[in-house]
């Protein structure tokens, strides 16, 4: 069972968290985005083998959404931070 380090609560079992998928930056002005751009934001997510930046909510804990950098192959959790605050790769 994965152990995720919540920046606010410390290391907790993955069962305390809810997976939120890869975050995507919302176009600043949705009305200005064309259909392909918007569809890309709404639907398209990478499914990499290896490092993946994800959002999880500590739903049974502090209820904060956190950013998690995880290796999808080994399940190693490399870093966690507040959303948008993961260090550059």
């Amino acid at each position, binding site marked *: 069972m994965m152990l995720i380090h919540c920046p*606010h*609560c410390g290391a*907790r*079992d993955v*069962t*305390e968290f809810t997976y939120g998928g890869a975050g995507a930056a919302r176009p600043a002005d949705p009305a200005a985005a064309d259909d392909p751009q918007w569809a890309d934001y709404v639907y398209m997510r990478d499914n990499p083998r290896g490092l993946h930046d994800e959002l999880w909510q500590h739903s*049974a*804990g*502090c209820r*904060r959404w956190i950013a998690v950098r995880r290796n999808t192959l080994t399940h190693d959790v490399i870093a966690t931070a507040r959303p948008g605050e993961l260090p550059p790769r």
Partner: protein
Amino acid sequence: MADATIRRSALAGLAVPLSAGSGAGITLLERHPLVMINLRGVADAAFCDAVRAACGAELPVAPNTSGTGPCGEILKLGPDEWLLVADAGAAWSEKMIIPGATLTDVSHARVAVRVKGAKTRDMLAKGCAIDLHPRQFPPGTCVQTAIAKINVILHQPQDADGFVLYAPRSFAGSFWHWLTGSAAEFGCHVIAPPGDGSMPRR
């Protein structure tokens, strides 16, 4: 509070006195009625001062901690979120003026049970995945976690007299079932809350 006389705990009829004889390894004691206030704010110096002035207690800022004062306890729930807990009748209320704070009354949202006795940690470990070893979970520690699929606040008060568990009100029946079931092998003693204004069960 105006409603004090008609308050009926979600554990009314469940948390009834029960003696396990002299061998009780676990004692369960409901805390009711309580005042519980959700407190939000940015934990800067001014806010800590304001809370101290209004509540007479130190605002806990480190993760998984709590503060205590003459009125009651302050449990840290998140980076900008706390729970004020006091016995009903205390001066704490949603109407307190604390600059920078958002207060929401959640007095009825949870049931609270104190669990104490020599076997408390063994019993809690049946459902709680948090390490309760005294070095890892000293008095004053407060965490939120899931026990038996129920989201709970688990607090070890400064007086170290056991642990207090707060569970969502609607889960009270299942929560009590888990508590008593887990405690059974150790001998389980139940003490009714003092001054419980609950109506008799039908």
